[in-house]
């Protein structure tokens, strides 16, 4: 009995958003209620299933769905501690984003198409999280690319089409490189399963040259989605997408898929010891550090709020890669926990940016004077997210920063502190002026395009509560970091298993 359930659960989690997604395509545009019900039923069902899985994995249960798609090619969905971290993040934020998107797209067109692809996008993300081998990962990675393209292009304006094309050009090239790398690796080793501690450790040293080359190809492929400089060009361009899409792209789906892939390749394919021996970690560390600083510098020059946030994502996602590039469990914890922390903080910021645009027509930082007086709850949420990004305790971002810094020092890489300090100052440099404007400058005489929703609150409920909830998550993830089942504790569990402690 329990065997069946364990084998079905990973598949069921993917299907819980895939099936509603498929049906949503068929829902008529006007059937608002039906579509909402489908969306929410899928999101809640997934949440329940994930809850079961967390408990099981914590107890050490094995969940695995295997499907042979061709002789020698097996689709494996497998839940280890690392998958659960990413699955949980996607599932929780999907639910919140769905609510937000329903509010956000209240009066827009093509909603069935939007929510259909939206669900597919989340299914693909969950598939990536649960992939048990490299082949499965590549498949879901490609599906994700294709499912997000229509979302970026959703508005259909020339700008949106252009942004979406750039997005597609980048991500398809990245996907191609990933495929090449995966096939190449397979020719050397046979099926590439993800194994805690890595599966290439036993390979003969003659192949090490090839392994380095394969790593470069894989990293280039994954680096596109993870927005490692110089492969980050698509990210600011895809800011033309509607706010819920940007939130999802930045916090959960696309960039995280890339970062997650890097984590998988380093820990579960190469193994962190081998990667370190081959010098791959150094390359990754340098690339990540450069991206962290470069992204922040560019963020300072942006006036568009969403663009500034986009460059901030470029910078912050590389914290994950930085944590991965440092040898030692503490840094691993820092990188992995930031996978979650960056997600909840950045989604908060994007929700808020969407609220400003929808409610007041404010899209640029220079228009944000006094916005805190008009939209106090939204701005409060924004403040929590922004301070968290800077790494001000006790918000989640500090926890990541502490573990990254400590991990760097423990690994003997003291320069990490310099990178973190620089990044902190730069983050302060582009977030604090926003907060200053919002809270300390006087209100303008009128807003660019104010919209009254006739509610008792500053904006529509479906827009207001999602960022407030995620801001509370940011605070809780920091304040209860040492409590059981916190992201930090879960990241510790993963690190223990990866290092066999």
């Amino acid at each position, binding site marked *: 009995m329990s065997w069946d359930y364990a084998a079905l659960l990973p598949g069921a989690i993917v299907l819980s958003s895939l099936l509603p997604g*498929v049906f949503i395509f068929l829902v008529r545009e006007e059937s608002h209620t039906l579509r909402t019900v489908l969306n929410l039923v899928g999101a809640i069902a997934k949440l329940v299933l994930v809850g079961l899985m967390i408990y099981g994995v914590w107890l050490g249960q094995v969940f695995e769905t295997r499907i*042979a798609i061709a002789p020698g090619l097996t689709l494996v969905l497998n839940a280890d501690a690392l998958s659960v971290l990413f699955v949980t993040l996607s599932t929780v934020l999907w639910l919140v984003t769905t609510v937000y998107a329903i509010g956000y797209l209240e009066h827009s067109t093509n909603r069935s198409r939007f929510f259909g692809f939206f669900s597919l996008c989340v299914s693909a993300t969950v598939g990536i999280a649960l992939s048990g081998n490299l082949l499965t990962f590549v498949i879901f990675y490609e599906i994700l690319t294709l499912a997000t393209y229509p979302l970026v292009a959703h508005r259909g304006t020339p700008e949106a089409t252009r942004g979406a094309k750039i997005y597609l050009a980048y991500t398809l090239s990245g996907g191609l490189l990933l495929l090449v790398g995966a096939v190449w690796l397979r020719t050397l080793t046979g099926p590439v399963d993800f194994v805690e501690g890595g599966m290439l450790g036993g390979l003969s040293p003659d192949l090490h040259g090839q392994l380095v080359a394969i790593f470069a190809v894989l990293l280039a492929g994954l680096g596109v989605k993870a927005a490692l400089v110089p492969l980050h060009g698509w990210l600011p361009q895809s800011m033309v997408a509607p706010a819920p899409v940007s939130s999802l792209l930045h916090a959960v789906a696309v960039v995280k898929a890339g970062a997650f892939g890097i984590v998988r390749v380093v820990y579960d394919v190469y193994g962190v010891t081998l990667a370190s021996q081959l010098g791959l970690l150094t390359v990754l560390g340098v690339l990540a550090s450069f991206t962290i600083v470069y992204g922040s510098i560019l963020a300072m020059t942006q006036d568009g709020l969403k663009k500034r946030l986009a460059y901030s994502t470029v910078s912050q996602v590389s914290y994950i890669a930085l944590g991965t590039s440092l040898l030692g469990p503490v840094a691993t914890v820092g990188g992995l926990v930031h996978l979650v922390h960056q997600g909840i903080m950045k989604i908060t910021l994007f929700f808020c940016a969407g609220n400003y645009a929808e409610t007041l027509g404010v899209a640029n930082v220079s228009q944000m004077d006094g916005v805190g007086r008009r939209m106090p709850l939204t701005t409060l949420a924004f403040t929590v997210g922004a301070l968290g990004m800077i790494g001000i305790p006790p918000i989640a971002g500090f926890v990541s920063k502490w573990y990254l810094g400590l991990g760097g020092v423990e690994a003997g890489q003291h320069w990490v502190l310099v990178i973190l300090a620089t990044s902190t100052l730069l983050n302060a440099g582009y977030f604090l002026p926003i907060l200053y404007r919002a809270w300390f400058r006087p*209100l303008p005489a009128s807003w660019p395009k104010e919209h009254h929703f006739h509610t008792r609150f500053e904006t529509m409920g479906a827009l207001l509560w999602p960022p407030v909830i995620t801001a509370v998550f940011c605070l809780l993830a920091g304040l209860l970091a040492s409590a059981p089942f916190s992201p930090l504790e879960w990241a510790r569990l993963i690190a223990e298993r990866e290092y066999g402690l």
Partner: protein
Amino acid sequence: MSAWLLLIAWVWPLLLVWPASGVRFRQDWGTAASALSPRPSALPWVALGPVPALAAALLVPVGTELPLPWLFLGTHLALDATAQVYLAFTALVWLAAGVYAALGERGGPPEAPTARSGRFDVLFLLSMAGNFWLIVGADLFSFYAGFAMMGIAAYGLVVHDGSPSALWAGKVYLVMALLGEVALFAGLVMLASETGTTRPGTGEVTALSNATIALLLLGLGVKAGLVPLHLWLPLAHPAAPVPASAVLSGTMIKVALLGWLRFLPVGELALPGWGHWLALAGLGTMTLALPVGLVQRDPKVILAYSSIAKMGLMMTVLGLVLVEPALAPMGVAGIVFYAAQHGLAKGGLFLGVGLRKHAGPAGSMTQALILGVLVFLALALAGAPFTSGAAAKYDLKPVLDAAEWTWIGAVIAVTAVGTVLLMARFIWVSWRLQPHAEPDWLWPVAAWGLLAALVALFPFAIAFGKPEAWLSNGLPLGIGVGIAAAVALIAALQPKLFAPFVGLIPPGDLLALVMPLLRAVKAMGEVFLEDLGRVWGRLKGIALAAFERVFGTPAGDVERELRQWPVAGALWVGISALLLLLLLGAQAPGGG
């Protein structure tokens, strides 16, 4: 049970944030322009903030611990002797300042620059909570979290009135505070790595690396006003509204000493190099601050420089203790009591300046009383015999006497004279202030009177059985008063003689030298970035052109058809159905 007071002490001000803010989240947004009410809440929330902390300082026995491993990164609240004294004087200064803020500062239309607002109260409470948290938290996370919360919220207090000078002061403050925080973060990370604990001072002592010590000294040195990291202090303390200045000078800068006492191996390892360095830096701080303070016009600026000088004295003593660990028991107690005495007196002086400006018309009884108390507080700060200043300083003497630098006693005596002169200058300037009377100052004056009474009673607490402590420090005071009297006499007869000196050095002293340098660096950086941007732009142009050539061409018929959503949708349905079938099929042979 009383252990929980350690948690309530800093959570309580946080709980008050919402009622104090006066924000209305629910209202008719169609007509209302703003959520922040022009008047803050009518109830004196900010005055209630420090009450549990004060209760904790009085009721919680020393040695109480409250481990909360689930909170943050593992919180460990505890009250040792140092923390108790710190908590007591910090809570008292916050209480007096809170009463002043809640009942003295006027509410008013939001456009009035000095009007107190909900925002001020919120930030006041946040800084307060941070200040208490870092005192009662024995782990370094609590310290850092409280430190950051206090430091960042205080920015809003500094810029509160929105004037260009306040904004400038706030900018300097924030930049320097962030630099300090970043250095402190790095220092604490290295400390945690080197000692293997997040509760320093509890395990066996491990030698810290030089880099760690340097980072800790730099990071906290900004807060302490260590020259040349003091640039923000003479700008920010006067720019803030009176109650905020009182806590900035009275409690917040003292936190740096607390941090050093906790994180440096005080009394455990001899650090002659660093100790001498810190002692010299402290002497340098005093040497700079006293003369610069003497030529200031604004009484609050004079007080700010006096704070810098006093911090310099405490740093000197701490440095000497680091050189000779055997002095630690006496030295640490001396520093802590001195910090407490200075905190109470300086808080009282700042609040007194505000009262001098607003409570009662010129020449009234109230004003005479206020001036009298100000003179008393200034004497206490200058260390006159029979005041708390003399008693507190008496406890520092053994450390100074034991120093291998025999000349240090003479230097300290000279600075003592300097302090007397600075306080004389302060009284002179305050006396000449023109009060603008406003009604309803009873409560702030009462709270201030309580603070002054505590300053008067302070010696009974620490020097009850030591008559020699009461009488110490008479000589520098006599010399100082003599010089001050002579100068005052000459100034009265020949007003032009000293006029060129007044305002000779602007507040923020070295900043005037640093700014042109920074501006030059910025200009150069901009030129460089512009060039870089141009090159980058050209490269991007080439890449984009290539991209447009490939993707900009109109799509062929097949592709366009595929792009239509019914086709794409149908394809998706097909693929999904296939996946489903595969999944179901996979179960049949046994699931692998």
